[in-house]
């Protein structure tokens, strides 16, 4: 009996102690809050709303920004054809570029051809070197050597394009002039400058591609009696091909879009290139050299926007190619 009594006392006391917060809550009318607790958002849930809200609004802002950039370029780029009544086909197929003279002198073919020429040539020259350097870094060199080369590549990426252009102007252009004659400005000079500029891009992406080839392929190949070189060209390069192609396309996108360095060495004459050492102009170099000389809303200005639109479409096309190859590579 005694024991039971004691127990009851202890329990009562405990209950009394527990009651204290209840009493306080009652005073501020929190009994209702207690009941609603499950249906009220907790602090953590509110943070979740906040985080989501922040992320979504940032995304929304960026989407609006991108859409307005594309919209702006499209509106102005298309004005050449809608307001100034330039024929689209004429724009793409004529080499007569002198928009100040009227709508029959807005032909971008010379620049389109030059842009593609420098891009393709730079990629063709740079790719074998890039693959060789990447192979050396991943397959042959010691860890130390490959780390050193990695930082050299990062340095090459970090040099501003105006510096490359300056180097090209002071070294490559005089060199071409002395070897081939003429002014030294032209597609060849631009190709050589772009070669150095896209080399690090293609190399570092190719290094990633080669590193992604699982090591057990190399071991299995060696265990079948393959030499290191046989393993490289029969297995490693073959497995990495889709990603190497992607690397080359990224390099081409960079070459296609490069403006400043190209503008400094290509000569900036909007002429159909008939050889590699005559002055020419790319879409980008024409934009950089002419954008200060036109008045907003006039035909010459709209014509430049059309060039910008063309560059935008090409950028989309390069992205599309990368996606396409990526999807094929997964199969």
């Amino acid at each position, binding site marked *: 009996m005694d024991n039971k009594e004691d127990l009851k006392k202890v329990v009562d006391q405990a209950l009394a102690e527990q009651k204290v917060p209840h009493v306080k809550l009652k005073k501020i009318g929190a009994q209702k809050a207690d009941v609603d607790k499950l249906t009220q958002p907790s602090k953590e849930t509110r943070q979740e709303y906040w985080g989501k809200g922040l992320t979504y609004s940032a995304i929304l802002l960026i989407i609006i920004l991108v859409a307005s950039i594309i919209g702006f370029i499209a509106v102005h780029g298309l004005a050449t054809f809608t307001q100034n009544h330039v024929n689209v086909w004429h724009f793409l197929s004529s080499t007569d570029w002198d928009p100040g003279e009227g709508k029959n002198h807005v032909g971008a073919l010379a620049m389109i051809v030059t842009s593609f020429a420098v891009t393709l040539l730079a990629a063709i020259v740079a790719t074998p070197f890039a693959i060789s350097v990447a192979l050396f870094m991943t397959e042959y060199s010691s860890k130390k050597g490959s780390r050193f080369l990695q930082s050299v590549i990062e340095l090459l990426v970090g040099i501003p394009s105006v510096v490359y252009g300056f180097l090209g102007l002071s070294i490559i252009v005089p060199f071409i002039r002395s070897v081939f004659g003429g002014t030294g400005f032209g597609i060849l000079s631009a190709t050589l400058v772009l070669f150095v500029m896209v080399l690090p891009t293609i190399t570092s992406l190719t290094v990633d591609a080669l590193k992604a080839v699982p090591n*057990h*392929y190399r*071991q*299995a*190949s*060696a*265990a*079948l*009696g*393959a*030499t290191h070189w*046989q393993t490289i060209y*029969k*297995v490693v390069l*073959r*497995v990495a091909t889709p990603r190497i192609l992607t690397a080359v396309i990224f390099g081409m996108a960079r070459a296609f879009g490069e403006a400043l360095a190209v503008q400094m060495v290509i000569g900036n004459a909007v002429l159909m290139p008939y050889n590699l050492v005559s002055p020419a102009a790319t879409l980008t170099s024409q934009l950089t050299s002419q954008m200060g000389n036109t008045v907003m809303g006039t035909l010459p200005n709209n014509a430049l926007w059309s060039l910008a639109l063309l560059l935008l479409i090409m950028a989309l096309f390069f992205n599309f190619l990368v996606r396409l190859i990526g999807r094929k590579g997964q199969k």
Partner: protein
Amino acid sequence: MTTIISSKDVHLSYGNFEALHGISMDFKQNELTALLGPSGCGKSTFLRCINRMNDDIANVKITGEIKFENQDIYSPKTDLVWLRKEVGMVFQQPTPFPFSVYNNIAYGLKLAGIKDKALIDQRVEESLKQAAIWREVKDDLNKNAQSFSGGQQQRICIARALAVHPKVVLLDEPTSALDPISSSEIEETLLNLKHEFTFIMVTHNLQQASRISDMTAFFMNGDLIEYGTTSDMFMKPQKQITSDYLNGRFG
């Protein structure tokens, strides 16, 4: 039976760590030898010494002697390409290349400079039959080898290793990544091939070793503890520690 591979006092160290403390053992032709032992005991390392797959690891130092058909494979004059054609290897994970089944099997043959299409066709069929996978892939020879199941992939890898007609095939835990049914299919394949090839197999599966091997070696901490016929090893091991391990008391 003739000895095909013999090792004498093989030491191997990674930097300052010695992983093998003098392994001496002989392997008989057309037998299946199982190398057993707890993880990290050096059995895989020793296996990889036999076709010099450890060469590519940085800081590795190997001393001692391994002879294949009485030729020292660690002699500076040894041609690795030749050695690896004679001593093939199958790995723990199935490692088919992401090519067609046909190109996987033909890979080693093409490396060896065989260009005769009919001969390659014949060898592909022969080795796929040997690896007991022919029935399952004969209509899909142009399908990517990686689209098959793990067990099928492993048998494709065995076929790939057999296609170059090696004398010895090293198997590094060939069934540990597979389900029991695929494992037993591979065991059966190995049993049927034992008369044509010499197999040296690392395994963690004691029952597997007792089922299919002729000889069993027990490794521990970089030493060869005991080596004998499989029945002797499992029925009356000489050393207590061997008995403990084979009875599953540790490891």
